[in-house]
């Protein structure tokens, strides 16, 4: 067995499994369960269930199938006679394996060993939290009188189905799409597409075609979700051919045929009809892209398939498509074609243009994923004037630390910030900022006091350590607090640091807001002028 297609051939898969499971011994070995249920055909009858991988080549296979869009959870399995014990999986996945083994008729009983760390799948937790947070918004949408209410209700039904199937990634993706309805952007319907297509280029350029809040698209939550997002059709040769056709443009009866063919690969859902509506919106978005490209003298790079033969319909390309698709409310296969090189990662394409080579990096690696999202953000801003905006508060609370001298002061700080009101956080109103700066004195004094105490303790301990090393080593370990350590280390670093000219150093901040730049220049003046 070498691919996802092989795995889906039920008889072959059963034969392969029969051989692999016999080799499992009492020693735990790696075992993989698909994160979501797959579609199998058993004697001409459809069956949906989890797939598993085991044996010598399972790691490589899991990696390969991940590239094909099927994600696997890793744990271990050990056998005692005909009892297979699974460790490191959630109960639902063990149950899924039990169902599969019953279907495969291998004669093995499945037993749950140690559960996975944590009570629930992180995606499940994310889904539940997000669902709770957005409940009121979704409810209001369902009560609204919108022209696209039918589409909206269909999405809610799909979301409910995904929840029942515990397909959290899909449920989250659908919820994102639903929230897109809430921002007032034009609904993706045949009628709306026709209206938008009739707009003058100038009017279309001014129309916001994005559906979700771009801030949501570039959040940590979204990035995490993207990493696990199931993407159908990855690497499928037929999908590649169809995407090439879509890129060139479709008309007449062929348009319907292509949609039907696409639905067979990436659906259902979505249906061919839904894909057809998405294609209509894709044409509108591409028209807006062309208007802005002309205005800004920008161009979309074509994909050189000779140089990158595997990129069309790859996971990297479709992940890029998913980000843009979530932004415009259209399917990833169309969105990917808005910028066919989007998500193409490889050494050199940014720092030294022209050296793009076949990337070795797994497209799901967060570093590569960052590159993909970076591409999407750049594309949105350049061709559609939509950006992620300034959201510095997003996911930054962790840096405050829980063990630091600051942690004890948090409630005091919080009090004064609350007193200053929302304006302080949102706009940093001058008077509020100055007032809060003064009110925070006690918090600063307490933190400074803690640091001074630590520094003095460290210095004392160091001195004693010279005299009685063995006795105080343990104490040094315990008391060498991170803050004092960081200060000492930074002072040491000064000696080793390279010296740059002031002009060079002043030119290293990249893009910077005007007010921030003026403040920095004023601060530098006090030292370097």
């Amino acid at each position, binding site marked *: 067995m070498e691919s996802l297609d092989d795995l889906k051939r039920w008889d072959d898969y059963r034969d392969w499994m029969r051989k692999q499971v016999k080799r499992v011994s009492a020693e735990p070995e790696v075992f993989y369960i698909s994160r979501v249920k797959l579609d199998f055909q058993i004697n001409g009858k459809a069956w949906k269930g989890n797939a598993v991988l085991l044996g010598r080549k399972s790691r490589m296979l899991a990696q390969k199938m991940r590239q094909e869009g099927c994600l696997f959870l890793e744990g271990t399995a050990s056998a005692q006679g005909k009892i297979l014990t699974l460790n490191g999986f959630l109960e639902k996945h063990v149950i899924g394996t039990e169902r599969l083994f019953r279907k495969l008729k291998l004669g093995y009983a499945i037993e749950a060993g140690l559960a996975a760390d944590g009570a629930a799948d992180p995606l499940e937790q994310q889904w539940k939290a997000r669902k709770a947070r957005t409940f009121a918004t979704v409810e209001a949408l369902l009560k609204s009188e919108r022209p696209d209410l039918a589409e909206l209700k269909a999405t809610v039904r799909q979301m409910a189905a995904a929840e029942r199937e515990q397909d959290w990634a899909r449920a989250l993706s659908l919820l994102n799409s639903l929230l897109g309805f809430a921002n007032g952007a034009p609904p993706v319907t045949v009628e709306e597409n026709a209206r938008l297509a009739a707009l003058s280029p100038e009017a279309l350029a001014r129309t916001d075609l994005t559906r979700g809040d771009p801030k949501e698209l570039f959040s940590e939550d979204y990035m995490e979700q993207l990493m696990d997002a199931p993407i159908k059709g990855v690497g499928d040769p037929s999908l590649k051919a169809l995407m090439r056709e879509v890129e060139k443009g479709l008309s007449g009866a062929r348009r319907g045929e292509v949609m039907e063919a696409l639905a067979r690969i990436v659906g259902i859902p979505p249906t061919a009809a839904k894909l057809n509506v998405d294609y209509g919106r894709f044409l509108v978005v591409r028209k807006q892209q062309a208007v802005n490209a002309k205005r800004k003298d920008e161009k979309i790079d074509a994909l050189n398939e000779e140089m990158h033969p595997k990129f069309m319909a790859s996971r990297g390309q479709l992940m890029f498509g998913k980000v843009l698709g979530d932004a415009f409310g259209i399917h990833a296969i169309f969105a990917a074609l808005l910028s066919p090189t989007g998500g193409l990662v490889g*050494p*050199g394409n*940014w*720092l*030294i243009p*022209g050296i793009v080579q076949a990337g*070795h*990096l797994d497209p799901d*690696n967060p*570093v590569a994923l*960052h*590159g993909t999202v*970076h591409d999407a953000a750049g594309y949105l801003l350049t061709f559609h004037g939509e950006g992620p905006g300034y959201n*510095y*508060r997003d*996911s*930054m609370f*962790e*840096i*405050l630390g829980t063990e*630091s001298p*600051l942690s004890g002061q948090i409630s005091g*700080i919080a009090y004064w*910030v609350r007193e200053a009101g929302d304006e302080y956080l949102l706009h*940093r109103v*001058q008077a509020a900022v*100055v007032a809060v700066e003064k009110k925070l004195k006690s*918090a*600063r*004094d307490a*933190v*400074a006091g803690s*640091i001074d105490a630590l520094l*003095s303790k460290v210095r004392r301990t160091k001195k004693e350590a010279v005299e009685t090393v063995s006795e105080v080593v343990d104490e040094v370990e315990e008391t060498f607090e*991170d*803050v004092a*350590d*960081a*200060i000492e*280390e*930074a002072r040491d*670093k*000064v000696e*080793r640091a*390279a*010296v740059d000219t*002031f002009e060079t*150093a002043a030119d*290293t*901040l*990249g893009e910077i*807001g005007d*007010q*921030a*730049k003026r403040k920095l220049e*004023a*601060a*530098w003046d*006090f030292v*370097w002028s």
Partner: protein
Amino acid sequence: MASIDLHPTELAYAFAYSKTEEVIGWGREPFLPTGRDTASGAAWYAEGEERLRAAERLLGNPDTGLRFSDAMTAAILALANPGVVLLAQRKAGEGVKTLTIHAAGDTLVGLTRRSDGIFELSRYTDLTAAAGAGAGFVGATIAPLDREARVEANHQVLSKLRQLAKLGQTEKVLAAIAQLGASDTDAKSAILALTRPSVAGVLSVLYCASNRVEDAETFSVATNAHEHSWIVFPPADLAGPMVLERSSVAALAARVAVGVAARLGVSA
């Protein structure tokens, strides 16, 4: 708090994948080969990949897909897309020595460059440690504050007073600072620090989004021969008040850490 050494090729390789065009506080030059032709560029990245794999910062194999180690991944993402950067610039003659600390999520990584071009990367456990490192790097005195001293004026006034002091009009400046509320001793200490510092630098807190600096809080730091540190900073924007304040490594670290905590909205 161990540092790891990173060759610029290693960072260039990672940044190529994260599509990072510039690193705040460093720009792009330190990560590039001297020759910019395709051949030298390709060799540069190949060297980066080899070094990363040898150091086990890049795992797996090229056929089935490579991945960065978790620690390297977190560091690169923080460098590529920080929420906050502490930029510590220390005066060295007329030049500058730099330490940047990039914060994203729960990751805080510090970066300095040695004169041989190698980067030293450190990790900090929390914001206070990072602020302490920044304050230590710009040379704020380690001695605890023996007394508080603070005067408020505005940018124009403090700039003018510093210029006059540098021109030798000390008496005039002493009188002006005393008028603003400082004692004679403190005024003399401040003038000495601002005009003839033994160590000086700027510690800036840069608030960022999409690898762009959106806003900054700056602290000019000057320490005189008596180990008295003074900082100059605008609590809000440049048009508002400008504060001249006695400080120390602990006081400055606390000021930065508490300020960032407030700014990030701990009440949220």
